[in-house]
């Protein structure tokens, strides 16, 4: 069918329906999740609690302590092959140097890279969502879709000031956030990959990472 035929048929079919204006911002507020947190420390606390509740591991650090926090997680995992997104604050040369200590392979993503053999990928989230403990990530030349998908563990860094209260704020804010260019792929991540298809038993790490570490960087 051509586009004109296709849309024409729909237009004819919906004639009897009356138009309804878009809900106002005040009307949308009904969908805000309870309780509503607004001040920053409470928001970060709430985010960390929700991250934990959905099965990810929250960590709190500062810009100065970031490299040590990340190295600590990699040591614990005994990770040998690590991919690092080169976005601030992760692009700092001291971070890569600290993480490579002990002969660990740490490298930036390259075109056509396939991370099926990598142990861990470290990337940056554009935002965190206190309502659900979700991370907002999107594809870019520095951070491929694979970073939070293919390796068995994903470590995602999020700045405390990038934590948003509610999905309403996050999605309504997307057009402004991406005004300069919409990313080909953006994803809200809420927990490790999971299924309960077999007898409703929860199993993590089905296709995506079984372990997700969320490193919250507080403003110094």
């Amino acid at each position, binding site marked *: 069918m051509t*586009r004109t035929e296709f849309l024409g048929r729909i237009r004819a079919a919906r004639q009897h329906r009356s138009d309804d204006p878009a809900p106002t911002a005040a009307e949308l507020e*009904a*969908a805000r999740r309870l309780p509503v947190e607004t001040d920053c420390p409470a928001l970060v606390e709430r985010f960390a609690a929700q991250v934990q509740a*959905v099965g990810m591991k929250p960590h709190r650090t500062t810009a100065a302590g970031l490299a040590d926090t990340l190295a600590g997680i990699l040591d614990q995992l005994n990770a040998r092959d690590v991919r690092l997104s080169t976005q601030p604050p992760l692009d700092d040369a001291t971070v890569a140097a600290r993480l490579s200590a002990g002969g660990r392979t740490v490298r930036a993503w390259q075109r056509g890279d396939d991370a099926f053999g990598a142990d861990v990928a470290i990337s940056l989230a554009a935002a965190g969502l206190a309502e659900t403990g979700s991370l907002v990530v999107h594809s870019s030349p520095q951070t*491929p879709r694979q970073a939070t998908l293919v390796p068995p563990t994903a470590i995602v860094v999020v700045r405390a000031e990038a934590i948003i209260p509610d999905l309403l704020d996050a999605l309504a804010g997307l057009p402004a956030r991406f005004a300069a260019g919409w990313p*080909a792929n953006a994803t809200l991540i*809420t927990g490790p990959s*999971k299924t309960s298809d077999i007898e409703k038993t929860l199993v993590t790490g089905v296709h*995506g990472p079984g372990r997700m570490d969320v490193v919250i960087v507080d403003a110094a």
Partner: protein
Amino acid sequence: MSDAAYDFKAAAAAAMASAHRRQTLGKISVKADKARQATWSSDFGPRIGAVRTLAARIKDRALARLDEHLERFIAGFEGRGGQVHYAGSRDEARAIVLDLCRQAEARRPVTADPGPLRVVKVKSMATEEIHLNHVLEAAGLQVTETDLGEFVVQVGQRRPAHIVTPIIDMTRHEVSDLFSQRLNQPRTADPTELTMQARRLLREHFRAADVGISGGNFLVAETGTLVICTNEGNGRMCTTVPGTHIAVVGVEKVVPTWAELAVLLKLLARSGTAQGLTVYTTMVSGPRQPGEVDGPEQVHLVLLDGGRTRVLASETYDEALRCLRCGACLNACPVFRQIGGQPYGGIYSGPIGKVVTPLLDGEQTYCDLPNASSLCGACYEACPVQINIPHLLLELRADQNARGETPLAYRAAMTLWAKALLSPRKYEVGQRVFEWFFGPKADRQGWINELPMARGWTDVRDFPAPAEKSFRQLWRETEGRLS
């Protein structure tokens, strides 16, 4: 009733044969239904009614100007390099997808023996609706379902038993039997190990795949973005690794703005699986951009009508198009809890399936579905977008009656019943006749075990025997004091 009518009653009876299966199904659905109620109330409190009304309004508003929202979607999606295709019918949708796969095949690098084109699939109701796998396999393509439940369904050549949890009717042992017999995996009774067996097998499929096929939960008109909700990560794999991504999406999935999408997303996972959001909410706005490391070079969206405009044109049934496919009404339904999803015959099961399957697949063929309900209203209570399913079932029944498809005896009985109810005198005569005829048939506990004109009903229930004196008699004798 037409000759080709689907035999729902036989299928339902067969499904109910196993008491163990019924208990398991009942337990799981009751638990899921309670979890939904708990999440609704903890997260929205007394506002939940207002949120559902808002969600229903958003869907209605999207449908009211559906063509205009679609146009906006298309402009945004194509503006970033995505390609949109228009499938008026299921046949057309299948032909478009097959043709896109053939094009992907032609783009493969020339090697001595490239083998069949490898397709990985995300669980999608729209692709099941058009019976896509069958056509692609018949054309020689290798198609792999990658959602764990759907993978088991495919390996076992079964039918999905639930919109959200396709193997709700299988035990871990049955899954292991299947994996060991068909896929040569070691036997295990551990769901984690079974899942890891599937993970290892499916990873190889993802790496080798040429084409990823998905459905879509929403189309955001504001920017031309396709939204896919999954938990396992297979949806992201299928939209990341293969060079071509094809999405098949029903036209009713359009949402005008991102703010409105937030309201629907908030309800979708909470209603379906009591999660705040599904683990992955993937937002695809186009193919791989310059400089990006991964992602498909081509992204195609096949918009599916497939009978939806017919439903949209109806002033009665159009509200069925609000459905988010969350599965909450299935979990709440006393009929579904007994029979599971397979007996419904169509792709959509449970209460919403009783409405959608007749509307999309033929009212004559699926004539039993609207009648397989006690109209208890649990589905209406559970629906996040307030689809009045009991009302729609009544309308479908009324249509059957108007077309003269209900049995003659049933119509005669109902005509008599209506006449009796309209006149106090006739009602009393009817009552006397019933008393005279059936009173003596009651057992000592005061139950009638069999009503000859309603055997189907009394096969599994007893009917209370008439009281010694009717309310009217008692009223007359005691002059309204009743004692």
